[in-house]
């Protein structure tokens, strides 16, 4: 089963110019795989996530979902999307419980089912002690972990992550990397992950979609052989792994026009 994008185009217009961000993009994404989107700034990585999530409309092209059914006009359609944005994105006036409950509001669940889901998911990341806390009283790392719970609590078909660790300190980022790899490991979901960090791209996924910033949008799929062992020091050590070094060099080569 796949998410298929065919000849997708997206431009941003202002009064003076038109900036073409995605031009004739064709891509097949397998459900169950984790893809990293890697490339220079402004090449359309975040735009692609926003198109798939249905946040922004694209100019032309088609999107097919699962059994090949066209969902271009119905985005986000009947698919469930979990999205971890760049920066902290909790509602500051809602406590942790309500921040999670609101993500479940569109699902047909009883109050009890919602409550149980929230408790189970918070327990799975050892965050249950924060259930009645407001975001201001949590660290950035804790807030981002809550946002990760919110992205996964809806049992998404697609998980989108837009540089989710960019504003975190290394310790918090590593904690979140571990949580993320553990939580999506057994799920049959399509994960798309934007990062500027080549080591993170290799650590988080074994399929990297490389944008070279050219028009029409050219992408290359890099399959890495690195298998993360998901221990705390593992990510910090990967830069010395010869296979990783080779992959990083290849990544940078592919990003050149």
């Amino acid at each position, binding site marked *: 089963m796949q998410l298929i994008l065919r000849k997708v185009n997206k431009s941003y217009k202002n009064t003076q110019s038109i900036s073409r961000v995605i031009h004739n993009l064709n891509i097949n994404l397998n459900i169950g795989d984790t893809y990293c989107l890697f490339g220079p700034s402004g090449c359309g990585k975040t735009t692609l996530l926003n198109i798939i*999530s249905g*946040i922004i409309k694209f100019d032309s092209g088609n999107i097919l979902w699962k059994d090949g059914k066209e969902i271009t006009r119905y985005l986000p359609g009947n698919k469930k999307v979990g*999205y971890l*944005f760049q920066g902290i994105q909790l509602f500051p006036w809602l406590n942790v419980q309500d921040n999670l409950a609101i993500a479940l*509001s569109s699902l047909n669940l009883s109050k009890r089912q919602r409550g149980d889901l929230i408790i189970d998911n918070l327990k799975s990341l050892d965050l249950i002690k924060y259930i009645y806390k407001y975001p201001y*009283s949590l660290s950035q790392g804790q807030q981002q972990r809550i946002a990760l719970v919110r992205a996964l609590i809806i049992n998404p078909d697609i998980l989108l992550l837009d540089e989710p660790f960019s504003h975190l300190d290394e310790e918090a980022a590593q904690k979140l990397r571990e949580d993320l790899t553990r939580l999506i490991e057994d799920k049959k979901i399509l994960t798309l992950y934007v990062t500027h960090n080549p080591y993170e791209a290799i650590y988080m996924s074994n399929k990297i979609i490389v944008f070279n910033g050219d028009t029409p949008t050219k992408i290359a799929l890099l399959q890495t052989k690195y298998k993360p062992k998901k221990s705390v020091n593992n990510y910090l050590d990967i830069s010395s792994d010869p296979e990783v070094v080779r992959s990083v060099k290849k990544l940078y080569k592919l990003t050149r026009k």
Partner: protein
Amino acid sequence: MLPLILILLIWHLASLKYPDSLIPSPFQVMSRAYYLVISGRFLPHFLATLTRVSLGFTGAFTTALVFSIILSNFFQLKEVSSVITILNMIPSIIWIFIFIIVIGPFSSAIIASIYMNSLPRFINYFRSGINNFDQSLAKITQVYKIKGASKFLSVTLPQLWVVIFPSIRNEIANAWKVAIISEVFGVGTGIGYQIYYSFGIFSVRDVLAWATLFILFVLILEIVLIRPLEKWTFRWKNI
């Protein structure tokens, strides 16, 4: 507290220099206000004014809120700004005269005056609030398909509270002023009418006593209702 004590002191010193009929002392005014309350004269007039203010104020608030939220879904609220600016420029007294002439010297004319006077001001407040909505939170709302009552109560309203409280504060005071001026021109009940009556018998003491009671009520409203409500609403802020 210090400014209040200073005002009372200056007032007291002025009352020593001038005759009671011109500037009565704070004590005389407070005694008269107390008498108005315990004699039962205050309550019916106060309730008459309070009812008019409540209806006009609540009507304007609700209409402006619904209007602003609905319109913001269809087009930029700046497109209605010229109409709002024109409505805002119309002095309160014009509305009062128009409604007393059209409707007659009844409570409904006063309520309509308060309504028309407060409506564009409320829209202005809410419009500025809506224009400053956090777009990143709008993305979350879209991704998680948050709609209807959940969206209104958990996303829209909390972002509007920052303008709702200042608007309530300013417009309550404004609505009271419009009500009192309208009562001078229009009807035979209410605090405004009593102030006008006191003016007719040249009783500065009574004018000040009625005004004091009116100010006290607004202060009590602020301390007992608005401030605790504001504190509870913004309990999520790190203050």
